[in-house]
């Protein structure tokens, strides 16, 4: 009976739940799905992390290469995030070139890295003007159940914290690069941005961490990225229903708490990874 009602009138179905301040999956409005992280599971990558946010699963692998720097920034390394939403992860994605959504999320990741300043690109310099590291951060969504952005940001940061690179020096005489496989170093992560997404339903009800179903019914969405000491580094609200100032304040407060929890989770997981 309930299932029929849900299929026929999904919005009405949700309203009935939201009247009681609860969601069909049993969560409260501000509650975020259980989050799990597995770090260092891919041994072919320099750093990797798997993040599960409820059913949504994202795997991030970081590969490092040595390349020539851009001429306008000769002493800065390059970080290239790329989000892939393959047909495997949900029935609504078709095989083919990257979807618009995947490109939007990729660009979002670029902006998060730049705005938060989580890595100083100068750390990735081997010899200014000649050789710099490029970090290809590939994020593959394995199961799509809404809110990939949060999962992606978490996976990316956890994977970057896991990166271990060999020491590379330039031999001035021969001009060749020398790799010291024994001497490994990790990236200096200056801060850890955490994204929290909220969906707006019926122009007034705001709830955190929407599932795929909720994303489809939502009339708007807002993503807040915060770093340590409750600093906001990025707010993204792509159109949709307008949001009042005090509602946004509530979202901000919720996202600060979430960010602290997520950072603790990453830290405790990293302690248990020997690498």
């Amino acid at each position, binding site marked *: 009976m309930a299932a029929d009602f849900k299929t026929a009138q999904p919005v009405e179905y949700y309203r009935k739940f939201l009247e009681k301040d609860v969601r069909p999956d049993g969560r409260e409005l501000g509650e975020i799905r259980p989050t799990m992280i597995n770090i260092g599971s891919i041994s*072919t990558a320099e750093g990797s992390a798997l993040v599960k946010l409820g059913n949504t699963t994202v795997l991030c692998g970081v590969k490092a290469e040595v390349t020539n720097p851009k001429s306008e920034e000769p002493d800065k390394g390059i970080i290239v995030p790329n989000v892939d939403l*393959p047909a495997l992860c949900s029935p609504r994605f078709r095989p083919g070139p990257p979807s618009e959504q995947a490109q939007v999320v990729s660009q979002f990741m670029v902006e998060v890295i730049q705005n938060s300043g989580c890595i100083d690109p100068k750390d990735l310099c081997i010899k200014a003007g000649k050789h710099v590291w490029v970090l290809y951060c590939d994020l593959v969504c394995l199961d799509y159940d809404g809110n990939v952005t949060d999962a992606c940001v978490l996976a990316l940061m956890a994977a970057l914290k896991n990166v271990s690179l060999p020491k590379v020096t330039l031999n001035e005489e021969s001009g060749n690069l020398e790799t010291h496989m024994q001497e490994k170093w990790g990236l200096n992560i200056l801060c850890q941005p955490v994204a929290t997404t909220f969906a707006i339903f019926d122009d007034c009800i705001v709830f955190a961490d929407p599932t795929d179903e909720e994303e489809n019914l939502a009339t708007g969405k807002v993503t807040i990225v915060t770093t340590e000491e409750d600093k906001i580094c990025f707010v993204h609200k792509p159109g949709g229903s307008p949001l009042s100032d005090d509602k946004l304040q509530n979202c901000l407060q919720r996202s600060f708490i979430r960010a602290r929890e997520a950072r603790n989770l990453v830290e405790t997981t990293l302690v248990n990874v020997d690498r």
Partner: protein
Amino acid sequence: MAGLELLSDQGFRIDGRRPHELRRIQCRMGVFGQAEGSAYVEQGNTKVLAAVYGPHEIRGSRGKMQPDKVLINCQYSMATFSTGERKRRPRGDRKSQEMTKHLQQTFEAAVLTHLYPRSQIDIFVEVLQSDGGNYCASVNAATLAIIDAGIPMKDYVCACSASYIEDNPVVDINYLEESSGSAELIMAMLPKSEQIVLLQMNSRLHEDNLSKVMDMATQGCKDVHSILDTAVREHLTSSIALQDSSVT
């Protein structure tokens, strides 16, 4: 002898296995909620994820519709971080296209295609970490995913590779053995009836040795079958137990 010693004097391979020994296979079924069927297979250091969607209506060009049988649509993709050197494209390169085609041909031969005319079954395979035997791990994972989706097949399709190294047939070769230049034979078979679904051999091998390598691969497929079968039975027992406990 130059370079690596692929088979030691004591008869051990580079990763410490005996010539007839498979790598450790770990599998899980029903890993996702979104797909009708899904499975994850770890064969040594090769890690593969498979998802099956369907049978459903034909998507995309309706011209592909077959009036008498189901269309099997495969996609093989390798994560860019799965290999030692970064891959430029996860899919769409020739090697992946070839693999896609192989998977499609393999499963067209094994799935009871006449049961779902005018429909489509999607099999998506993603290699997360690669250490040789990608085709074999993909087939094994896809088989489990199809079983998980409840799509009838003639039998399990089990795949295994074999090679001939220093006058010894060896089974389930890893990346180092694969790239050593010796012959590589990959075989997919229906183990109960011992029918070969797909067989491919690269590189040179003397005719006299072919049967030895084939026997090795056949035995490998049967070993894989018993592992997969145990996994399926365990999965079913635990999911039935779960249902029972939720009823009471």
